[in-house]
């Protein structure tokens, strides 16, 4: 990553979309930025945190982030909230409310969508939020446009009294391309909040008036779309004319280098006159866009004949070859040699796994050893008679605990859902005990409120908080429990145990993530009890720790190859030349020691102790 504060105006740099968004916002006079980490959006706030003149915070969740940005906007400064696509679901309430109040200082909401689900649970198309919230959406198509559009986004926001949705995708956020940097704008005015109840207090009587203003705003934005510099026609030849936006523009240029193209930088509201003019000059109009037929359906509603999703896939990320093969299918392109018959060979997969030394591994192993869990696994669907153990899961690295051989989770849907799921399964009346497993950052994000619900509604579930003291999966960001802020400064930490006790949980246990016996005992005690309990499993995230002590080794004279250690799914434990072997470069040494604890014949240890040299 560049030190982006040192990038000089007039020069060119290779920036990722996320770096370009951060630099563009900074050069456009940004004062306040708030975000919750989420792939592929995380680096936007990480970069913004480098600027001394920008207040940048990791918020507890996306709803809070948008509300912080709204407050800053009301106080008259330019502000931004960034998040991954599903984060905007969490923040949908303030987003729609910001639409109706309008703004004071420019307010930009960045949504980084994830077509292809590189690291997400769905691939929703967040342009729909622009239509729902009646706000404009800008979609950059490379890093230069991401940088340039950010200046414009703040101008549009302030000119039309509206929040602006700035939508990127993984391929835009995480691709690097050349950016020519401009002079930074000098920031105008100081923060000043002036009370204006009719605008900022949405009592029904005031909100009714604001709705009229919002509809007026949409009409003005439609007129603006016709002349906006972000929409434009690239002349060309050929029968087909293509409307496209975002990264799809690059694939269209690759596949149809000479076709006439209408490139949309603003995909809501659409420039109707421009689209009709473009359509009238060509024989066949097509739309190439990733995910939903968002533009296509609006163009159809204008009564313009157009096609797109009848041959371009609605699922997954597009690529040049997908656009090419779709165009061949639709008869728009002659079949060429590009799609040749490379035979797919069956190579072993390399799926993601928990790191060696991961503090989550022991809990999943211990859950697997719980008699109720063993019973549940063995009985499958017919477990109405005996009480088993259901484990609801959540979003984080630990979701990998669902995979075999750990097989430790039965559900995972969205941030914080594990506790609500557990409560619902319990209240449905199952005979099983229910354990919810949630990470520390996810608990702060949206576990607190559902735990209060469980206390209030007299639940007897067990909530395990896997506290690795960071937001690991997105690259180790701080959260309230860590007490380290986005700029790396030490702040007040919010204590998990105090928060949990404060809500009213009486049975609270804190245990060492690397102590298998303590983990097994804690699960047994908690699930045998009829009281609501919280078990905080504490151990620092492996990549953040310095390796300590010697690698564990296996005494092959004692090893019976019972495979118990393989049940830990540790990448360091391997078969080599017919015997079990621990890779000393991968082993976390004294930071972990789980394999040594689970080996039933004492064949694992360090040289000079337990194991013969």
């Amino acid at each position, binding site marked *: 990553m560049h030190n982006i504060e040192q990038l000089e105006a007039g020069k*060119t*740099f*290779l920036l990722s979309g996320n770096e370009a968004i951060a630099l563009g916002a900074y050069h456009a006079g940004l004062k306040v930025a708030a975000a919750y980490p989420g*792939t592929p959006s995380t680096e936007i706030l990480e970069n913004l945190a480098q600027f001394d003149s920008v207040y940048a915070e990791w918020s507890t969740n996306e709803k809070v982030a948008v509300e912080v940005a709204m407050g800053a906007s009301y106080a008259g400064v330019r502000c931004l909230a960034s998040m991954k696509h599903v984060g905007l679901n969490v923040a949908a309430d303030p987003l729609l409310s910001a639409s109706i109040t309008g703004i004071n200082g420019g307010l930009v909401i960045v949504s980084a969508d994830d077509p292809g689900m*590189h*690291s997400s649970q769905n691939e929703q198309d967040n342009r729909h939020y622009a239509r729902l919230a009646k706000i404009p959406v800008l979609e950059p198509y*490379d890093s230069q446009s991401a940088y340039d559009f950010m200046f414009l986004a703040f101008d549009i926001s302030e000119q039309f009294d509206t929040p602006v949705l700035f939508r990127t995708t993984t*391929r835009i956020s*995480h*691709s*690097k*391309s*050349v950016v020519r940097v401009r002079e930074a704008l000098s920031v105008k005015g100081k923060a000043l909040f002036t009370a204006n109840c009719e605008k900022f207090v949405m009592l029904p009587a005031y909100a009714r008036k604001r709705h009229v203003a919002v509809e007026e705003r949409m009409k003005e934005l439609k007129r603006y779309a016709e002349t906006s510099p972000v929409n434009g026609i690239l002349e060309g030849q050929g029968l087909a004319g293509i409307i496209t936006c975002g*990264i799809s523009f*690059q*694939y269209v*240029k*690759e596949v149809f280098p000479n076709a006439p193209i209408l490139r949309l930088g603003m995909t809501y509201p659409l420039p109707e006159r421009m689209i009709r003019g473009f359509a009238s000059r060509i024989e066949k109009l097509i739309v190439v866009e990733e995910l939903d037929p968002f533009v296509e359906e609006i163009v159809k509603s204008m009564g313009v004949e157009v096609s797109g999703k009848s041959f371009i896939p609605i699922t997954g990320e597009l*690529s*040049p*070859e997908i656009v*090419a093969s779709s165009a061949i299918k639709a008869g728009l392109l002659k079949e060429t040699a*590009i*799609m*040749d018959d*490379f*035979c*797919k*060979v069956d*190579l*072993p*997969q*390399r*799926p*993601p*796994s928990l*790191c060696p030394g991961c503090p989550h591994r022991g809990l999943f192993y211990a859950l697997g050893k719980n008699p109720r869990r063993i019973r549940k696994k063995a009985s499958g669907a017919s477990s109405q008679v005996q009480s088993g153990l259901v484990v609801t899961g959540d979003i984080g*690295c630990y979701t990998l605990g669902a995979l075999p*051989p750990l097989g430790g989770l039965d559900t995972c849907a969205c941030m914080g859902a594990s506790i609500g799921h557990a409560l619902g399964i319990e209240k449905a009346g199952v005979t099983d005990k229910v354990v919810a497993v949630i990470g520390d950052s996810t608990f702060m994000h949206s576990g607190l409120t559902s735990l209060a619900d469980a206390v209030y509604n007299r639940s007897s579930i067990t909530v395990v908080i896997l506290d690795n003291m960071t937001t*690991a*999966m997105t690259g180790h960001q701080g959260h309230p429990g860590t007490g380290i802020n986005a700029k790396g400064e030490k702040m007040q930490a919010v204590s998990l145990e105090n928060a949990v006790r404060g809500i009213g949980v009486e049975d609270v246990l804190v245990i060492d993530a690397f102590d298998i016996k303590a983990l097994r005992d804690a699960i047994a005690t908690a699930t045998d009890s009829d009281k609501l309990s919280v078990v905080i499993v504490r151990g620092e995230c492996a*990549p953040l720790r310095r390796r300590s002590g010697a690698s564990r080794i296996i005494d092959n004279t004692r090893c019976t190859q019972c*495979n118990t250690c*393989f049940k830990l*799914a540790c*990448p360091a*434990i*391997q*078969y*080599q030349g017919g015997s079990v072997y621990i890779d000393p470069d991968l082993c976390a040494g004294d930071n972990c020691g789980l394999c040594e604890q689970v080996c039933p014949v004492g064949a694992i240890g360090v040289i000079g102790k337990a194991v013969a040299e």
Partner: protein
Amino acid sequence: MKNISVLMTGIGGQGIILASDILADTALRMGWDVKKTDSIGMAQRGGSVISHVRMGEAVNSPLIPVGKADVLFGMEKLEAARSCPFLVSGGKALISNYGSPPLSVTSGGGKYPADEVILDIIRKRAGEIFFIDGITKVADLGNIRTLNVFLLGALSVLLPLSLEAWKESLEARLPQRILDINLAAFSLGQKEIKNAGVD
């Protein structure tokens, strides 16, 4: 000039992202247009990593279309074989003979393919294969983590980028304390490929 596409593959922790950043930065220093994109997935460590780097007068898609990579740069041989469909027919494959068996193999289930199986797959596409024992060479230098820069040195012989631009980029992207050993690894990589027989 025709655009050049280099597909770089390896596993998490090998420094593929840094290597592709250095290559892209070198192209930028030549005054070219350049785009790069990484596919990392959700693995913190040990998962497959792919970087697409494209350079020339004007680059559109950051993703290299299947069958359009001029060079396949592989830091781990199984991953190189997996990404082979990206290589243009008759293209160049520069592959470290380093192998890291994935969990599906080490837990006793799958089988890590033999070198001949991997080379047979790559031969279906590649016109020239450089199958290099990079780890041994950089281990002699004293730091196996320089394998990425060693292979960049080898790559530099195959691409029309100036040595000056490479040096500037290496100096800009690498921390001072490990710069010298990496510059040595780069030179070693250059020599290796100049002397190497084509497979």
